[in-house]
């Protein structure tokens, strides 16, 4: 009887892995459901245990069982470790993902599981915090704050109750590393949280998972139950989100766990001092916590040895969108954006030229190929007017309309705003309207060689009223003046609005929405109709 390995990762299931697994089980195989290896162009992937090791075939359909089992299937890939996509990686955090049965405690222990926790528990809490500091680990949720310093604050805070909160909201488009880890190696996250609990003296932990990740929620709940005796006296619980992107912001997340609307809190106080239920709280992203077992087991130096500048260790980069070889690629910081998109991602899935990539989720900047020399590094991206965020890279081909993407960024901000700050709550909707006028003016400029376009945005003011003094003007000030819908006037207004959002928002939702908008405008002005007047003048 053959042993075969087939992923139960949500992406693999979406591509038909369940049907494939059923077909192999019906054929009498012992089917082990693993996490995903992380290369989705070969999913559903079937690995068959043979004399020479685990041999992969993919993508495989339910009708391919016989051809796979006798080794004659055309999509024979060999050993996964030898594929260029995997051979080039440095898998510190994702070492076991795709290899093991995610819920098997034996599998986890055989491949080095719980070693980090044992090492940590044999040390004083301060030593554990010191190790995390020495590793150079920075928050993988996007902000890049040094994790060890955050833990030190919580350790030093005098309090009876402390909490570990794992931010598993992963609401960014183009990111799925948190999801893959929770579905493919849940004990790694649990171990990281248990180490954090020992390091700061916390007794209880929450994992806040977005409701869009039902597979994660089920897997994590099962894993928590199965490993409760190992992490005891530390106790863990999963909390399910309810469809609010903003709950990925740490203080909104805390309010959501507390049973309130997910509205952002003013900082200070820092959650490290006054967090969940007012107690000192470690809040870390899934990837930050999942990096910790490696750091403790292999040593801080081993982790810090990889990387670039002040960005130490590895980053699980996620290649998404219109990309040929999309998936998860864990590598030390410093690899360039171009290498990731072209050499590893293989360019676009559509075969058309790459026109733009958005790095760091919906709040990240759009970069053109002329920026592909940028090294993947917190500082380099910040300097270039962007962010690496959670390291999601969404690739767009030359059919993309960047004005449409800028409009969507505003629309998304309007849909997800928690409502606390005016620029985010209202400004975003006004931004959508500005983009509609720009797109409208662009369309009419391309079809008609028109006079500078002017239009009324609403009912016209009665010009007779204007002479009636200050009070009347104030009373009727909401009646709009004629709006100059020339593209230049509208883009100036858009920049002005972006400035207000950037400086007038309490959190990154309102504060970073200008990144995609302004980068689209700066790098792709032709999509905003900005080049049209020049072209006409040349005629």
């Amino acid at each position, binding site marked *: 009887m053959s042993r075969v390995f087939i992923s139960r990762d949500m992406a693999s299931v979406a591509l038909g892995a369940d049907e494939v697994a059923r077909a192999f089980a019906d054929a009498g195989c012992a089917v082990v459901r693993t996490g995903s290896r992380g290369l989705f162009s070969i999913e559903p992937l079937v690995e068959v245990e043979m004399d020479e090791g685990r041999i992969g075939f993919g993508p495989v359909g339910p009708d391919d069982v016989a051809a796979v089992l006798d080794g004659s299937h055309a999509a024979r890939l060999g050993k996964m470790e030898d594929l260029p996509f995997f051979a080039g990686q440095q898998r510190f955090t994702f070492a076991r993902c795709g290899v093991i049965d995610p819920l098997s405690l034996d599998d986890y222990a055989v491949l080095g599981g719980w070693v980090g926790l044992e090492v940590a528990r044999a040390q004083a809490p301060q030593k554990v915090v010191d190790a995390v500091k020495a590793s150079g680990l920075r928050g993988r949720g996007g902000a890049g704050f040094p994790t060890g310093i955050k833990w030190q604050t919580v350790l030093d805070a005098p309090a009876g109750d402390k909490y570990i909160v794992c931010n598993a909201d992963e609401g*960014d488009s183009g990111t799925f590393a948190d999801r893959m880890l929770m579905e493919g190696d849940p004990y790694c996250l649990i171990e990281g949280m248990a180490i954090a609990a020992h390091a700061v003296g916390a007794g209880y932990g929450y994992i806040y998972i977005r409701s*869009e990740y039902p597979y994660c929620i089920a897997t994590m709940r099962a894993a928590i139950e199965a490993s409760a005796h190992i992490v005891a006296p530390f106790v863990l619980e999963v909390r399910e989100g309810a469809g609010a992107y903003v709950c990925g912001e740490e203080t909104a997340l805390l309010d959501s766990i507390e049973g*309130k609307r997910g509205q952002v809190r003013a900082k200070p106080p820092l959650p490290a001092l006054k967090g969940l239920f007012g107690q000192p709280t470690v809040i870390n992203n899934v990837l930050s916590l999942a990096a910790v077992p490696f750091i403790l087991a292999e040593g801080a130096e081993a982790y810090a040895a990889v990387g670039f500048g002040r960005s130490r260790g590895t980053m699980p980069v996620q290649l998404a969108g219109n990309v040929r070889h999309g998936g998860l690629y864990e590598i030390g910081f410093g690899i360039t954006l171009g290498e990731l998109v072209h050499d590893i991602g293989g360019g676009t899935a559509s075969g058309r030229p790459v026109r733009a990539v958005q790095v760091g989720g919906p709040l990240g900047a759009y970069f053109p190929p002329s920026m592909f020399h940028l090294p993947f590094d917190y500082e380099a991206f910040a300097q270039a007017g962007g962010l690496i965020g959670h390291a999601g890279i969404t690739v767009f081909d030359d059919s993309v309309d960047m004005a449409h993407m800028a409009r969507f960024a505003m629309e998304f901000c309007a849909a997800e705003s928690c409502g606390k700050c005016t620029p985010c709550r209202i400004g975003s909707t006004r931004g959508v309207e500005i983009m509609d006028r720009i797109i409208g003016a662009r369309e009419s400029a391309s079809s008609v060689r028109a006079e500078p376009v002017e239009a009324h945005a609403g009912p016209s003011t009665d010009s007779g009223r204007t002479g009636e003094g200050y009070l009347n003007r104030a009373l009727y000030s909401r009646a709009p003046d004629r709006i100059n819908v020339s593209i230049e006037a509208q883009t100036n207004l858009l920049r002005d609005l972006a400035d207000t959002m950037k400086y007038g928002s309490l959190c990154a939702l309102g504060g970073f929405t200008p990144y995609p908008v302004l980068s689209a405008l700066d790098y792709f002005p032709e999509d905003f109709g900005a080049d049209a007047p020049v072209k006409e003048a040349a005629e």
Partner: protein
Amino acid sequence: MEEFIGAWTARHGTTRDGLLPLLHAMQEEGGYIDDAWVPAIAKALNLSRADVHGVITFYHDFRRTPPGRHVVKLCRAESCQARGGAAIEQAAAQRLGVAMGAVRADGQVALEPVYCLGLCAVGPNALVDGRPVARIDAAALERIALEVAA
């Protein structure tokens, strides 16, 4: 429903942080959260009715009216757009006969927006009655339409 709330609080307690888990459980049970149940929820957790109403309306997931018999959650976010999501969204609304964000008049199917399912390399994606579907094209859309017609 009061019985349900009573059984739930007996197991999980009556602290305020139980509100989201309770709302999830109620929606799982009844498909939506009727405004008529708000007073009982408020009483059980010692909150004001306005407070409970405010939480229900803040979170997109909680429904105040019955859902369609089938729910298609289609991703509208960037990575799916990069793979033709906008065209699929239009086609889906047309083929299913329901606007994005609405329940069809006969109650058979609801088309809901979702902002990322974490399947960003294989889009456009959807959750059809909780089942993930990737690489949606015209043919896949036809299969979904037949599935939700049943």
